[in-house]
């Protein structure tokens, strides 16, 4: 399948999931991600898989919990308000160390908000969303090709580290069409000896559980889980760095905001402004090193977001506030134009000259 196919971002996620061996999808309709469910509804019955429209997002994530406990690759998808409903399940998945893939095709909030693209669930995604100390691996695609690629990576990381991977996309990338190649190398799925597949009277019973009434035991469980998180932080953080090496100004943006920003960076470079782009691809773990390194030479950072400023906090934390970080944003379903970002760069460049 070296040929490229023209696909919507949401469909690319669905097809990639199938190619990654996912045979169980549970969802509940919500704009702007219904193409994923529609694709799965068509494909799953043809390949011996399960597509089930659940009675709610809460039920869907718990069906995911069930399949995951039974050791199979499984996914659900939703958009912002639906992810809030799934957050209980996300916490339980984390507490029981179960792998799963969850897609959040973000829309504007809070509350019912709107149905246009947004990045305002960054905190919810990177800080966990549900209750308790936990994280999810958060992957932020900025093209349809990456929607597919990161879906496969998401499944692999989820299985390896026994945790949820979230694809944090947005309405724009979900809806837009681009050519995609599905020429991926997909690793063989790993064994899951902990899964509840029936004892076959050959082993002690497996228990999938997140309840620890003994506080010492619960503390140890949490600490052990965070040791695993430390390994992930060390090994799995990725970012795209574009024209960063000599840059005085760094633009930080992910997903759709990064696409817009790249245009602005190119325009500013053409004007002779030394500006580069860091695009986090993993939002958790956050690519701290890329920012720390850039902060050694850059004088300013502009964070471009479709939110009131959420990732900006991680940028400030990773650079330990050594460099001033400003925000360039639109919210409520609005997207910054390349010109808005360009103007922000020009302004920063002027400030730098003073």
């Amino acid at each position, binding site marked *: 399948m070296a040929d490229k196919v023209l696909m919507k971002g949401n469909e690319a996620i669905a097809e990639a999931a199938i190619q990654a061996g996912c045979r*169980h999808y*549970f969802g509940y309709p919500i704009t702007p991600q219904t193409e994923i469910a529609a694709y799965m509804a068509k494909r799953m019955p043809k390949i011996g898989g*399960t597509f*089930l429209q*659940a*009675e*709610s997002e*809460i*039920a*869907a994530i*718990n*069906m*995911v*919990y*069930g*399949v*995951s*406990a*039974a*050791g*199979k690759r*499984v996914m659900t998808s939703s958009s912002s308000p639906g992810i809030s409903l799934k957050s*209980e*399940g996300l916490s*339980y998945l984390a507490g*029981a160390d179960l792998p799963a893939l969850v897609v959040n095709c973000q829309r504007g909030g809070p509350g019912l908000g709107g149905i246009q693209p947004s990045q305002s669930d960054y905190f919810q995604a990177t800080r966990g969303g549900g209750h308790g100390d936990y994280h999810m691996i958060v992957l932020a695609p900025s093209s349809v090709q990456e929607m597919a690629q990161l879906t496969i990576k998401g499944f692999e990381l989820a299985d390896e580290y026994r945790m949820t991977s979230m694809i944090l996309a947005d309405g724009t990338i979900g809806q837009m069409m681009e050519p995609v190649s599905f020429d991926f190398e997909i690793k063989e799925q790993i064994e899951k000896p902990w899964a*509840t*597949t*029936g*004892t*076959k*009277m*050959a082993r002690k*019973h*497996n*228990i*999938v*559980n*997140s*309840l620890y009434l003994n506080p010492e035991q619960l503390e140890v469980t949490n600490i052990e889980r965070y040791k695993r998180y430390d390994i992930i932080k060390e090994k799995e953080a990725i970012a795209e760095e574009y024209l960063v090496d000599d840059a005085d100004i760094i633009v930080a943006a992910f997903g759709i905001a990064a696409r817009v920003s790249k245009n602005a960076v190119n325009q500013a470079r053409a004007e002779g402004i030394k500006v580069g782009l860091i695009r986090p691809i993993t939002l958790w773990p956050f690519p701290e090193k890329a920012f720390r390194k850039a902060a050694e030479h850059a004088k300013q950072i502009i964070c471009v977001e479709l939110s009131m400023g959420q990732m900006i906090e991680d940028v400030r934390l990773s650079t330990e506030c050594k460099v001033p970080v400003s925000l360039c944003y639109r919210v409520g379903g609005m997207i910054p134009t390349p010109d808005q970002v360009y103007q922000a760069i020009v302004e920063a460049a002027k400030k730098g000259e003073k």
Partner: protein
Amino acid sequence: MLVFDRPKALCDVPLHYCPGCTHGIVHRLVAETIDELGIEGKTVGIAPVGCSVMAYDYFNCDMIEASHGRAPAVATGVKRSDPDNLIVFTYQGDGDLASIGTAETVHAAARNENITIIFINNAIYGMTGGQMAPTSLPGQVTQTSPYGRDPKLCGYPVKVCEMLSELEGPEYLERVTVNSVKNVRNAKRAIKKAFQNQIDGKGFSLVEVISSCPTNWGMTPQEALKWIDDKMIPYYPLGVYKDRSAGIFAHSQEASK
């Protein structure tokens, strides 16, 4: 000759339930059923939140702990992960199944999900210390209905078998109790049928077991069993509410098909 001993599917550990709590009887009936049908190696049980939250420590088959009310959704996932080989049951109380998890219960039934549900109705929240349940009787005094449940203020109890029997989906719904030797034997028959239905691919089978909570009812264990006869059963009549294969329907329209 051995007449009676602990079933093998029940782990050899003491149960944490209060003295005289009938959870233990129902656990044993489920375990006996698993033994008799020879399905321990392919059974996955789902424990709820509530008094039986630690049921995962009591059954020798694989077990999953679900979040409050979501056991039927979790069971749906597990069953659909390997429908030809796994036997999946949930074990849920009234708060779990008939309050917070009502939607999951109703829709698993509507889909005729091929799972078995053991539903413990003791008309109270036991684990949290005796609050009003969706199934608490009108007038029943609990920690959160200290003057007795007033239907004007907090509505009427949910009759799960009656409610689900209106759906076309479910295969089998029966209400039993465990307050006497005879009734325990009958409950065993119903539970075994609910598992056999799943093996036969017939679909959603739910057994509601009217149970006692001596601690939170404020009675001796024996008084509590009598209270089942005097108060619970008149409100929650025992019997088969639906058995599609046997042609028993509570819903007259469906019966006429």
